[in-house]
Every structure is written in structure tokens, then in C-alpha cells.
């Protein structure tokens, strides 16, 4: 695979690392009992701790700690028995404390890795540097009033897991696959709801460019991207910008950038003179966080099957390709649906590949068209299984099955009902098919002569005519075979 960008003088390679912020799926905040519910009226979920009233003390949420450990295990990472909360100091209107409680030197989770799978069957590991727990800030609205910013502190103090990758990513697509994979792991673990629109999952992207083989170039950081599409767009724009500067003899200034989603451009956020000095120091209000090996073992034992394990199981049990298996396991609802479908009938286990295709292409495209997802599909796994069984036993053709699926989707009926009601059973009676073909040949004598004279393309026409007469129900293979036989006899 060629990951390089063509330049004026030589090719360029992107070097990309991601910092993903994942909101812990918890009822209450990291250090206070306020609710984390999304979309509540402004400042209605703010305790005196969140508002940083003098004398208030943080008390850590045990569940959030467990979720961070769980996530660490899911990222194949080292869990640290000892970690420390630090204050990251800066002034901003939506940060009442004047500091964010985060983890700096001693994060709760250390080095790990995740694997991304490519369409061509290859895969790649992206190394994780660390995962730490921290507080989210409040929300500022800048565009409501020309001279004011409005602040809502409901999000202030909500628990975030920041997941930092090594700069192992080389293309915008890899960045997209990486964040999808992290999202998938978080959702299997149920430690984050993965909702990028609501900001439960967002990323900062670090990017630099270099001549392949050279040292890393100077990087820029693009802040706060909340969709995979924007991540890819921002990377593409920023890489191009950096290459243009370097090729015209300039140098890259290390900078924090903002991405404008309507123009698709990045621009610097702060200039260097005012570079932040966070003055991290251990939070004197919080003792170090200690987790025993027993607790870690207990949390590990509660972890469900993760996408990679499930993927390998699918490959082994059903002889699926690496790519098919990774598509199936990318989202938990997809793998659940596949499992339920294939387990609905013993016979289907020999047709796993067909089951995959019917879920990931036919059913998915119907769902997409109707803006639905598997969770609210009107076709149950059992009913899809029944439809596939009708195909695998030759009762209906694949082509007719597509219409049946659409009918099932809109009417909620079972495949069996629809096939019986409409009489869609495939015609597999040799004599009946032969009769239709004779009819077609008799009615199209001229065409037959042309065909015999070498116009091979006409074969499709005869097949089409015969299918029309049988209302598409003739078994396509039998139809073809008999047609060939009859035509060849004439020769």
C-alpha cells in the first residue's frame, strides 16, 4: 500500500497520533454526585464541588475508576497499581476551579495496543502510550451574542478517559479506522456510549509530515474533532498546508490548531508567546489512587468478549475472511445480530458467508436508506435466517430474495409468509423450464439464427425472456443449462 503524498521534489509521509477523549458512561461525575445526563437545562446539574465553591472537596467515583481499568484491559494495556491526580492549571470561563484535575506523571493505565484491519486482509498495530482519568470542562457558547459568552457547567466535572496513541498512524484512513476501533472496544466494554455527536467521544489529532525515513517533523495539534469525517478532512488539509510551507522553503511552527467544519480549513488557536504553562502538581485534595492486583483480576473477569476475540472466533468457526469478520465485529449490535441469525438454524452454519453478505450488504443498505440501524430493524435475525435458508435450499432465487427482504422490511411479515402468499417458489421442474424455453425459441426464430451465426451476446436476451415468462422464478442455473443445451442442439 502506498501511503505517501506526491510532492514537488519528493514524496511526503504523514505522521499522526491521536488523543481520544472518551466520556465514562456513569450516572454521576468523577468527583461529585451531580448527574451526567446529556441535554438537561443549563447549570441544573452542578454541585458546589463542580462550581468550585470554597471549601468543597472532591471524592472520587469508584465506578469511574473501574471503567478506566476495564478500558485499559480492553486496550491490552498495563494497569498501574498506583496513580496520582494532578492539577492542570489554566484560566478559562468554563473551568470554575481554575484547574482541571487530571493525571500527569502517574496515569492509571500504561502502555497498550490496538489492531486495525485493512480491506486487503492485512492488519496493523497502533501502540497506546497511556490512558488517564480527568475532569471535563463546562460548555461555552460563543455565537449567541456579539459581546458575551454563555457558560453551562453541566458537563463540568464529568469523567473522561484520555487515550493517547503513539504516532503510529500514517494516513487519514488509518486515523479513522483507529478511532472506530477504539469506539468499538469502548462500546463492547460499555465504558463509554461512543456517541460522537453528543461529544462523548472526541479527539485531538497531532500531525507532522516528513520525507520517508527522516526524523519526525515539527507537529501541530488539531483540537476537538467530533466526527471521523472531520478527523480525515482536518488531517488532509493540515498535511497539505505543512507540505506547502516546507516545499516553499519555510518551517513549521509548533501550534495548536482549530478546524473549521464549514470551510474545511485549520487555523492556529494560540500563538507561541502565550503558550500555556500548566504548572502540573499533585492535587493536595486527593490521595494517590491505589488498585490492588485482586481488584484488577476481579474487573478483568467481568469483561465480555471483545471485538478481536470475537473476530478470531468467527474466522475459526465459520471460516470467514479477516475482513468480513472485522466488519461483523466492529459494532456489538452487528455481531449480536449475526450470532442470532446463524444460530436460528443449524443449516445456516454451513452458509456463514451468505449470512454475512445478507446482513452487511442487503440488510445494511435497506437500513441506511431508511435511516435506521440494526437495533430498530423490522427484520428479526430469525426471519433473516429463514430467508437465507430459503435461498440455500434453492426454494427461491437470490434475486427474488432481495424483493422478499424489502417486503419483509416494510410489511414485517416473515419470508415464508411472503413466498407462500405471492407464490414465489423457484421453478425447478426441468420440464416446465424446458417448455418455457421452447416457447422463447419459437417466438424469436430470427434472433436464434443470429445467435447461431455467432452473436453470443443474444444469450442474455433469451435468458431475460424466459425469466420474464416465469416471473423471475426459474432457477437461473437450470434455465441457463437447458437453454444452452437446446441452442447447441440446433447448431
Amino acid at each position, binding site marked *: 500500500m502506498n501511503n505517501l503524498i506526491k510532492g514537488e521534489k519528493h514524496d511526503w509521509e504523514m505522521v499522526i497520533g491521536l488523543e481520544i477523549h472518551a466520556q465514562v458512561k456513569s450516572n454521576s461525575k468523577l468527583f461529585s*454526585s451531580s448527574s451526567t445526563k446529556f441535554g438537561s*437545562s443549563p447549570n441544573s446539574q452542578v454541585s458546589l464541588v463542580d462550581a468550585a465553591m470554597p471549601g468543597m472537596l472532591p471524592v*472520587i467515583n469508584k*465506578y469511574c475508576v473501574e471503567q478506566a481499568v476495564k478500558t485499559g484491559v480492553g486496550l491490552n494495556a498495563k494497569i498501574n497499581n498506583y496513580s496520582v491526580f494532578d492539577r492542570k492549571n489554566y484560566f*478559562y*470561563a468554563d473551568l470554575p476551579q481554575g484547574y482541571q484535575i487530571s493525571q500527569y506523571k502517574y496515569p492509571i493505565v500504561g502502555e497498550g495496543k490496538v489492531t486495525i484491519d485493512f480491506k486487503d486482509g492485512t492488519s496493523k498495530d497502533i501502540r497506546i502510550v497511556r490512558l488517564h482519568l480527568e475532569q471535563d470542562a463546562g460548555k461555552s457558547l460563543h455565537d449567541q451574542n456579539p459581546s458575551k459568552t454563555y457558560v453551562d457547567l453541566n458537563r463540568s466535572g464529568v469523567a473522561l478517559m484520555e487515550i493517547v496513541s503513539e504516532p503510529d498512524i500514517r494516513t487519514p484512513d488509518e486515523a479513522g479506522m483507529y478511532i472506530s476501533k477504539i469506539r468499538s472496544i469502548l462500546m463492547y466494554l460499555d465504558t463509554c456510549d461512543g456517541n460522537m455527536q453528543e461529544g462523548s467521544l472526541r479527539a485531538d489529532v497531532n500531525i507532522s509530515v516528513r520525507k520517508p525515513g527522516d526524523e519526525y517533523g515539527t507537529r501541530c495539534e488539531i483540537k476537538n474533532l467530533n466526527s471521523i469525517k472531520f478527523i480525515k478532512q482536518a488531517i488532509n488539509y493540515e498535511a497539505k498546508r505543512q507540505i506547502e510551507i516546507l516545499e516553499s522553503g519555510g518551517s513549521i511552527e509548533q501550534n495548536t490548531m482549530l478546524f473549521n467544519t464549514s470551510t474545511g480549513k485549520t487555523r492556529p488557536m494560540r500563538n507561541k508567546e502565550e503558550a500555556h*504553562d500548566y*504548572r502540573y502538581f499533585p492535587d493536595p485534595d*486527593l490521595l494517590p489512587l491505589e488498585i490492588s492486583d485482586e481488584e484488577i483480576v476481579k474487573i478483568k473477569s467481568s469483561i465480555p468478549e471483545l471485538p478481536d476475540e470475537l473476530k478470531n472466533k468467527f474466522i475459526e468457526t465459520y471460516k470467514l475472511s479477516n475482513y468480513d469478520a472485522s466488519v461483523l465485529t466492529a459494532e456489538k449490535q452487528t455481531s449480536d445480530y449475526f450470532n442470532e441469525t446463524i444460530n436460528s438454524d443449524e443449516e445456516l452454519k454451513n452458509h456463514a458467508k451468505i449470512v454475512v453478505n445478507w446482513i452487511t450488504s442487503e440488510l445494511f443498505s435497506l437500513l441506511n436508506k431508511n435511516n435506521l440501524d440494526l437495533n430498530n430493524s423490522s427484520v428479526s435475525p430469525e426471519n433473516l435466517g429463514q430467508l437465507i435458508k430459503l435461498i440455500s435450499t434453492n426454494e427461491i432465487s437470490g434475486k427474488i430474495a432481495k424483493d422478499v427482504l424489502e417486503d419483509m422490511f416494510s410489511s414485517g411479515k416473515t419470508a415464508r409468509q411472503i413466498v407462500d402468499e405471492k407464490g414465489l417458489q423457484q421453478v425447478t421442474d426441468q420440464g416446465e423450464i424446458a417448455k418455457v424455453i421452447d416457447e422463447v425459441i419459437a417466438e424469436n426464430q430470427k434472433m436464434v439464427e443470429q445467435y447461431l451465426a455467432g452473436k453470443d451476446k443474444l444469450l442474455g436476451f433469451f435468458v431475460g425472456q424466459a425469466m420474464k415468462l416465469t416471473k423471475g422464478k426459474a432457477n437461473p442455473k437450470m434455465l441457463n443449462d437447458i437453454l444452452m443445451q437446446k441452442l447447441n442442439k440446433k447448431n
Partner: protein
Amino acid sequence: MKIDKNTINKIARLSRIKLDDKESEDYINDLNSILDWVEQLNEVNTENVEPLSNISSSILPKREDVSKDANSSDEILENAPDKLEGFFAVPKVVE
């Protein structure tokens, strides 16, 4: 470590505190004498001694994940100099 004019200006800026020349001078002297006093600790040999984070030897207390309905907006906004429809209103900050 010595505090000089540049350092005091930087600290003042980070703390959003405005200092005049006289105040800067005073703080330079005050902070330097504090640092000198603390630096006496360097005389103690701390090789092979683990940093002590807390003398209480207690462990970090934890809460269960139970949310309390706060419905806090009135109380939280009570001291706000300016507010609108449940939001704090502050001078525009745009980066």
C-alpha cells in the same frame, strides 16, 4: 533557585494579577526568602527514600456511582454578576 523580574512577571501573568514595580520588587524579595528557607531541606539526604504523598497513611476514599438530582441552577447562578436563561454570561472569550 532565584526569582528575578522575568519570573515574577510570568507568575503574575499566569495568575492574572497586575503588579506595579514596587509590588514586583516586594514579591521578588518575599518569594526569594521563602525559597531560601525551603531550600534548607536540600541538606537532608533523601536518596532511596520514597516520596511521601500524605502523612495520614489512609487510602483514597471512594463513592458509589449514585447521582443526586441537584436542580441547581438558581443556587449556582445566585452570585453570578451576569446571567441569561440559566447560563452564566461572561465577557466574550474566543480563541
